[in-house]
């Protein structure tokens, strides 16, 4: 029990450090949230600006603001958004719901497709099908997300008219939602799959040279059975790490895809908050992401223990 307790302590320390960083990092950026609040063509006297600063509590010494930030946080109060004019917690919850619907299926599908296709590509490297799949996933892997998004939107949305160009829905029924989400989910799945494909392919290439593979072969096991019963499990450890990382960042949304498809997700929330220097939203969203990354890491450790006896043995 000592070891997990140590680990929990380490995670608590990481969380404290992150929470503090979340406070200081946005404030380290040049820019003034108050002037941003005025809008492009509103003109004000300098006294009026100072008054707004006072109302927002931004005129207080930085350490006083930091103490108040901690105090609010311990009451689970993320504060109030200057730009979105709403409680940060309700903003994050409303955006998280749709981000989750967009990102979670892509993550799961991308991991399954990438891991399976990657393991096959690593196992039978020289087959025509695997050469093609390698080139395809390499192309996706190297392409900027906005480029692929615009390309697919142009062909399937604009040219063929099969899918809508924007939003999570128009009417709101589930077929309508599926139609709207098809392209964004497809694109995110492709990117997730390409990452997993590359990792899995490399991992299988390493594993297949190991002695236990030769031993299984000598015992007369079929190739497919060696791959999926023995090699796959050992080769999938880096994919689990990648999944955990992606899971943590699931809550940061998918900025480029959200911009191309005009989706109201976490990505655009963070982006707009950075542009407008909306400190409370930045603090709240970064904290959510950090928290999820920490949980994901903890779960990865746990899964590693469960899946790999070598890790258990080293404890």
């Amino acid at each position, binding site marked *: 029990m000592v070891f997990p307790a140590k680990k929990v302590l380490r995670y608590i320390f990481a969380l404290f450090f992150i929470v503090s960083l979340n406070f200081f990092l946005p404030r380290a950026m040049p820019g003034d949230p108050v002037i*941003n609040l005025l*809008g*492009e063509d*509103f003109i004000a*006297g*300098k006294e009026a600006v100072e008054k707004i600063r006072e109302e927002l509590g931004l005129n207080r010494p930085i350490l006083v603001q930091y103490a108040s930030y901690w105090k609010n946080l311990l009451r689970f109060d993320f504060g109030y958004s200057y730009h979105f*004019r709403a409680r940060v917690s309700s903003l994050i919850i409303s955006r998280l719901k749709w981000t989750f619907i967009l990102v979670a299926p892509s993550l799961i599908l991308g991991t399954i497709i990438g891991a399976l296709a990657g393991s096959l590509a690593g196992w039978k490297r020289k087959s025509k099908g695997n050469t093609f799949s390698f080139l395809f996933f390499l192309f996706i892997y190297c392409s900027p997300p906005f480029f692929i998004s615009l390309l697919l939107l*142009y062909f399937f949305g604009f040219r063929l008219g099969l899918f*809508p160009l924007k*939003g999570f829905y128009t009417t709101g029924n589930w077929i309508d939602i599926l139609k709207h989400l098809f392209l964004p989910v497809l694109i995110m799945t492709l990117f997730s799959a390409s990452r997993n494909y590359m990792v899995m392919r490399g991992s299988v290439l390493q594993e297949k040279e190991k002695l236990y593979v030769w031993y299984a072969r000598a015992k007369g096991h079929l190739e497919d059975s060696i791959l999926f019963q023995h090699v796959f499990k050992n080769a999938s450890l880096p994919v689990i790490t990648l999944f955990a990382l992606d899971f943590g960042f699931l809550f940061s949304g998918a900025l480029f895809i959200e911009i191309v498809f005009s989706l109201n997700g976490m990505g655009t929330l963070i982006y707009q908050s950075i542009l407008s220097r909306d400190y409370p939203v930045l603090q709240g969203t970064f904290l959510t992401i950090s928290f999820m990354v920490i949980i994901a890491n903890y779960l990865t450790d746990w899964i590693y223990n469960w899946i790999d006896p070598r890790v258990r043995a080293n404890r």
Partner: protein
Amino acid sequence: MIQHKKKIAIVLLTVFSLFFLMTFVSHGEEVVLRIGSPNMVSTANLVFDDYLPVFAHISNPPLTKMNTEGQIVGQSAKLIEVSSDNTTWTFHLNDSLYWSDGQKVTPQDVKFTIEFIAQNVPWAGWLKEGLQDISIQGPNAVVLKFKKPHTQINRDLSSYNLLPKHIWEKVESPQDYSNPGENIGCGPFYIKKVDLNAGIITMEKNPYWKGQTPQIGKIEIHLYNNVDVLSLALEKGDVDTYYRYASSYPYQNIERLKKTGRFDFVEKLNIGLYFLAFNLKRTPMSDFKFREAISYAINYPEILKLDGLDYGNLPARGFVPNSMDHFFETELLTYDLEKANRLLGEAGYIDSDKNGIREDLAGKDINLTMLVEPDYVRRSELIKYYLEEVGIKVTMKNVDESTWIALKDQYEYDITVTRTTPWGMMVHGGWGTAYFDSRRTGEGVLHIIDDPIFLGLVDGLLSTTDPGKIKELAHSVQSYYAENIPAIALYWNMIITPFNREFTGWQPDPLFGIYNIDNFVNLKKVF
């Protein structure tokens, strides 16, 4: 076999008949105008969001408006009076206005709106500080008494929407208030729904509207985060027109839309403009001779062609575009490289060490820091190229918008390319004075002029409602710009709005473009 064919024919006939019947029925449905806009609404708050208040100008019309000729006239107010000392303004309310829930619009609503704005809207602090008293006079008038003369209140109130007192007085925390459902309005249309996940704002006809009956039944504003995708949506027919506050449809996409044969374009010369600003607090920008020489180094026809694709006019030294009320004709800005070089030499900026860079009056190579916002990179690159042609080195400092604001407020730059909006050109003293007056601040405000002559002109404009005097001062401000060149207009651009030819009767105004009540009540679907 023949019987089968007959049966098939009957079935087909029935299907086609039903189809035509459905088509006929759908033709009988209300006409929907779909507007595509990249002005993303963040929250369903009619007062505090960046763009929803602009869209709500037709559902909650402000007391005043700018007409198509660019003059401020009454809108929800039918008559506006001002006392001779400019401290008391009386707004006589249009008595045929009704909220979409059937209640009459009353002077109490106007009083509530003004008090609400003064109390709650951070950028309307001037109203809170300046307003001495607000009272209701007779059955339909509201009187605003200010502590000191206020000459532009009719103009300033053209951007604040009228709010129904019986709804908003119950709102406990107006800044957090978000109503994605029905927002009661008193214009020809009211907001039925704000669905940000669908990216659609739906506006329906106000059943109690007594003015000119709109021909279109419903307006849908479709929000797009990406202008290129919005252009595709126009081409595909997902939306009928385009609206972006204070901006044109991207010039580079116009030809593509023209080729579809389904679009026409409303063209209006913008009141706002793109310009090169100097930090007058630093040398050599504080030297008039230097600025004058720079004004001849810029290739205006080329920048208009490359950046504006010739959708605009060549600018004059007086800065203010000729589309603005009380425009004063000054000398056109011209590109004359030889003159620019000669003027720089005469002013003492010479390249004595022959390294290709001129030295300032202290003998150091001139290296200007140009602050560049993401939206102005191409324009800035052109300016850098022009200045380097006359031996002035320019270092571009690319920053995001917030950093740009912070650095320009700290005067941490030498030159920058930026823009004015129509509203920005009109506020404060008007004619762009808000951007230069050192006593003001704001996102786009440069506050670089503290010359008492200029400040005197601004104060003059701020203290009179006499049309003759205003015209005279407006001309003097433009002369001041022409004589001192605190900034250089790069070109006067057109606001181009594409629209589906199925709709006619477009009436843009210089402030909000096509987004005004007169436009929407006049629009007709012709096919």
